[in-house]
């Protein structure tokens, strides 16, 4: 295996989605057996936040369109999925299948909303587009607030969640964890492949220079609408996972502040880096829960948001490109070296053993 080959294998690809899902489920098993239910819930939020951050990154980080209404798409997905889970038509499906498919339904609903929001980008750009997305987010929230079918101000309570498959040793939590990790991997893989495909380059060209892209024959409007639709789809998926893990929805959750939370994640992680989004989502979910909350108990003052916003400002000043900038995990020298070492290792193993159709080839694109 040449060095060139190893680069091809690892440099611009991801680890095999199947392997990652399997590893995550293993991790879920550890978490289930070693932590309390509160920590377990927090872990589920991480998945939701990863999906939300990665999906917003497609629009803002990769296509360069600033969106202030991501929570609106999340709300559409969450409410649609929750509403469907109450419907008798859906109860016919087996439990696990139902809850694996619901995020897709939520995602489709959000994608339609994304299409509608994407349309104004025919004419608007920059700050004007940003304010329109903010407006759409607010409209969605106020509409939910006034829709009695989804509880209005009272919110939707006791949203069903998967009951697992106890005969097969799959506890409710592990099932939920598996579905969440499945969708997280699907999200990241899909988005990764989109932006690294030829079509995905169109998004990047729009980000870099709209006029130049248009001159090169890129349909800028179509690219923007596409970015919005895909991004909204995954935001809806994230919303659906949120709905079934928190089991309670209220329009108040999906306010402007929620959109800002997601923006903060992608900015901290690095606009245009999915790896950064993942790291930032994990960080932003865990730090308030396990560092700032205990701090509040010591100081007796809620300093959480103050510290949070200070970190944000300092980060922007000290490291304006975010944690990773536009680099992905595979762009780091030490990762490349490590990968090369592992591939050499595998090559040696495969020389002696039967075939080389082991894990890394499954990772090729």
């Amino acid at each position, binding site marked *: 295996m040449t060095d060139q080959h190893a680069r091809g294998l690892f440099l611009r690809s991801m680890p095999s989605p199947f392997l990652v899902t399997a590893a995550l489920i293993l991790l879920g098993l*550890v978490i289930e*057996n*070693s*932590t*309390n*239910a*509160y*920590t377990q*819930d927090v872990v589920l939020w991480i998945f939701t936040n990863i999906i939300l951050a990665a999906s917003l990154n497609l629009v803002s980080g990769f296509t360069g369109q600033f969106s202030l209404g991501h929570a609106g798409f999340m709300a559409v997905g969450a409410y649609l999925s929750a509403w469907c889970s109450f419907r008798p038509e859906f109860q016919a499906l087996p439990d696990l299948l139902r809850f694996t498919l619901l995020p897709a339904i939520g995602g489709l609903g959000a994608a339609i909303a994304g299409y509608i929001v994407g349309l104004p980008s025919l004419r608007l750009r920059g700050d004007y587009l940003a304010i329109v997305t903010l407006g759409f987010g607010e409209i969605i929230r106020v509409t939910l*607030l*006034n829709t009695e079918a989804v509880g*209005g*101000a*009272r*919110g939707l*309570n*006791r949203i069903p969640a998967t009951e697992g498959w106890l005969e097969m040793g799959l506890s409710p939590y592990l099932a939920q964890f598996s579905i969440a990790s499945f969708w997280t991997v699907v999200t990241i893989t899909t988005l990764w492949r989109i932006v690294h495909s030829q079509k995905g380059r169109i998004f990047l060209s729009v980000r870099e220079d709209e006029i130049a892209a248009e001159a090169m024959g890129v349909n800028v409007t179509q690219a923007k609408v596409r970015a919005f639709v895909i991004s909204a789809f995954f935001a809806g998926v994230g919303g659906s996972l949120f709905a079934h893990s*928190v*089991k*309670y929805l*209220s*329009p*108040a*959750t999906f306010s402007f502040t929620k959109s800002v939370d997601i923006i903060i994640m992608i900015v901290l992680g690095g606009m245009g880096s999915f790896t950064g989004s993942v790291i930032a989502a994990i960080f932003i979910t865990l730090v308030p829960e396990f560092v700032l909350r205990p701090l*509040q108990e010591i100081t007796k003052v*809620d300093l959480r948001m103050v510290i949070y916003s200070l970190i944000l400002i300092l980060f922007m000043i000290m490291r304006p490109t975010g944690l990773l900038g536009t680099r992905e995990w595979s762009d780091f020298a*030490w990762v490349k*070296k*490590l990968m*090369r*070492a592992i591939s*050499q*290792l595998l090559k*040696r193993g495969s020389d002696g053993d039967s075939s080389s159709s082991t894990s890394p080839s499954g990772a090729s694109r």
Partner: protein
Amino acid sequence: MLQLKSSTRCSNSSARSRFLHLALAIFGAVSMLQLASCTKKNAQPSHVIKIGEYGSFTGSEATFGVSTNEGLKLAIKEKNAAGGIKGKKIELISYDNQGKPEEARAMVQRLITQDQVLAVIGEVASTRSLAAAPVAQQYKVPMISPSSTNPQVTEIGDYIFRVCFIDPFQGLVMAKFARENLKKAKVAILKDVKSDYSTGLSDVFEREFKAMGGEIVGIESYASGDTDFKAQLTQIKGKKPEAIFVPGYYTEVGMIARQARQLGMKDVPLLGGDGWDSEKLWEIGGEAIKGSYFSNHYTTESDNPKVVDFIKRYREEYKGKTPDGLAALGYDAGQILIAAMERASELTPQAIRNEIAKTKDFVGVTGQISINDQRNATKSAVVVQVADKVNRFVTTITP
């Protein structure tokens, strides 16, 4: 970084062994984590009794959470000073939910699964109680809401209780008061769409008032956080109501009263519910709010020794602050829980739950409280009129 660099330069066997070390280290860390959390799980100190509380201590409804917390703390402090329950001191763990429903839910999850409390007290706002109650029910830990009046709260399950009256009763009280005591025939409603407390109360009032032969001339809505209500009030003024029912929180009611007067509705009284109860109402409403009526849990004008005594002790504890209805309910919720723990044969959530359910004719600050089959408190309500820096007692309405 440096280490990794050297590792790739090393021979493959060394790389392999490093890999092995790494794997071992990860395994070790995971098992340590597991061990740590296991010990944490089992570490339930037996010398204290843990009670959890969740409330909004920050955010726009912070005074609700703070008042309840002060009342509750007073009840626990008094019990601990008297020797605690069965020789054990009570420890109160309070978490802030910033006024967010999903945060309320997370905090109850945390209180029960991480802090292993025996019972939970909270929340004031029905929206947040509704969000959090299913968690308490799921883990079978009793939860007492001091002041969530929406009927659905206790319908969540048999571990959820409340020590206040419910909205159907409160709405009935105000409808009855408007129709029979004030002899009003035409009333308009201005409700807060963002709060289900407000919309729920509005629905009941509308139904009851119509049933008594009154007429609802118009329903307008606002969203909590608004400061300008003139558009809605102009609409209402056009309908010429004799009174306006504003089932909102004191934060907005004061401004609504001012703007109603500015628009020329000088002698149209405002009517409201227990969400009005705060010293801030007088301050913000000023002259405009005087003469309006609202239903409440108790009145500070009572000569009931229990109430007089409570007000005195509360003022001593909190620098002369007058306890509002929420503080009184927080105190009562704490006392009912303490009494149930005292009676319980063993200190388990199950036993405590059963004793709370048996509460009968408990003499609290907010009246005689009996817990009924729906786990709601049957008690009377008072109607008070806002006067100069005091709420004058008008009448008591019993169920």
